[in-house]
């Protein structure tokens, strides 16, 4: 297919969505209020749905064809292509919400660019994902503002979350996504995140230079050990 988005790009997007969705799903039943439990689960469902759509596309385009579950459950950790930010443990609610802001602010321009891509199957997925990402961005933005401009404790927690997640932003912004312009995406991300921080009366730190990413991906290894455990105990099973 001449216009097809490369598989490595599809997997970067799919794996980022899948691992982020997995982390969000860990909150289900444990959220700080029932309304937030439900809202966060919506985000988990959105991004796992996006991961499924993309993995189904990859699976169908492989020769011989494979399945979304083979890709999700039977690839080893080193074969995943997600951005590191997606796999990090949740931390507290401030860190979970900040991650959502950073990832949604990254995804919105990605999906909006891919919506116009000549790979029509990708464009269709992106068109739906863009709407969902804008909603996720709004939800995360509102909470970051509440935390920064809330109580001394919430401010201290969101500042700690910025300290914890900021080192992963260089890799996020450096990630190439075919069919999109990296510098324009970077500028859009910076504008959106800086505006949220401004409203939250928080300082927007400089995104440092890209260090060699953590090639061990210990968090991803542990996440997949749990996610894949049952499927791998019954490799021949249909569920």
């Amino acid at each position, binding site marked *: 297919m001449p216009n097809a988005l490369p598989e490595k790009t599809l997997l970067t997007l799919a794996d980022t969505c899948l691992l982020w969705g997995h982390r969000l*799903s*860990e909150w*289900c039943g444990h959220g700080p209020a029932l309304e937030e439990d439900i809202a966060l689960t919506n985000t988990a*469902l959105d991004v796992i749905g996006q991961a499924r759509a993309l993995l189904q596309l990859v699976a169908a385009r492989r020769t011989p064809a494979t399945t979304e579950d083979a890709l999700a459950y039977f690839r080893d950790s080193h074969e995943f292509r997600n951005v590191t930010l997606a796999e990090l443990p949740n931390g507290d609610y401030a860190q979970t919400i900040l991650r959502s802001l950073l990832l949604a602010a990254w995804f919105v321009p990605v999906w909006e660019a891919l919506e116009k891509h000549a790979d029509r199957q990708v464009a269709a997925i992106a068109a739906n994902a863009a709407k969902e990402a804008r909603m996720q961005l709004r939800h995360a933005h509102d909470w970051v503002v509440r935390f920064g401009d809330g109580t001394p404790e919430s401010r201290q927690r969101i500042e700690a979350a910025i300290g914890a997640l900021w080192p992963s932003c260089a890799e996020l912004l450096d990630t190439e996504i075919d069919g999109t312009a990296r510098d324009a995406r970077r500028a859009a991300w910076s504008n959106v995140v800086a505006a949220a921080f401004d409203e939250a009366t928080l300082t927007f730190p400089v995104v440092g230079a890209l260090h060699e990413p953590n090639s061990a991906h210990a968090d991803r290894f542990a996440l997949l050990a749990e996610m894949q455990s049952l499927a791998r105990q019954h490799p021949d*099973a249909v*569920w």
Partner: protein
Amino acid sequence: MYTQSLDLPNTDAGNTDSAGLPTEAAFLARIARDEKIEPQDAMPEAYRKSLIRQISQHAHSEVVGMLPEGNWITRAPSLKRKEILLAKVQDEGGHGLYLYSAAETLGASRDDMIDALHSGKAKYSSIFNYPTDSWADIGTIGWLVDGAAIMNQVPLCRCSYGPYARAMIRVCKEESFHQRQGFDIVRALCEGTPAQKQLAQESVNRWWWPTLMMFGPHDSDSEHSGQANAWGIKRISNDDLRQTFVDVTVPQAAFLGLTLPDPLLEWNAERGHYDFGPLDWDEFWRVVRGDGPCNAERLNDRVEAFEKGRWVREAAVAHAARHAARAVSIASEKIAA
């Protein structure tokens, strides 16, 4: 789910009607005409308290019920099952939310209801004090536990209190979907490898008796059923619902090729029903009184989530207050200008 609370001893001593006899008589006449009672209507204090107790305990059951199934979200064996389970557990949270809201229409506050749960004063359905040891339990809970819940809940769609009855219509639609997804999980296991089939059988063996206990004590031992019937809250007796559930479920188990763990289970042509063995009421009361396999774990999880989320809720309140104060200040400046 989970009208078990209707049958448990009422620890609230002040259960008297302050509205006086004429109101009570008029009220019972409205119930007899099958009219819906709405929040603004006069109602006996005992009716209001009884409903708050039942609806809040129903809400607690939904929220605590998120925990045993939530246990398998991260390990669901396919992406499709993972999405379905997430959506299902989210639905239970939504049910909790409608039900807390229905109780609020009676003057109860959500914070007070949650305090009562966390202090151990309020109960929730004992079925959630059993562990989910295998993936098959996710299927069994949907098929049997949600199936039993539907039997209990469909009559509540006609209950006399309007907000509760209307909440239950939506809850029942979603529970019906949950039951079908549970049956579908068990069906896939039964049609799968021998190891999968064994998981399903082992799960049904563990859940069958606790599910039958969900309908509550025998009618002869059911403390609140009489009053709840008179008030139009409860429509069908515990034993009748339990019998209907057994009659409906036995053929489903046969279709799946599963056995039910009751040597006395047998069709009785004369009664037109299945006979079944005696329930272990000692176990029932033990779990109700807090000594089930997971009582402490469930309550700890709820309290921990609530306490860990306290700063989040406080931040939202503080921010909203500051925002409102700023809006007032800007408006004042505009008026002054």
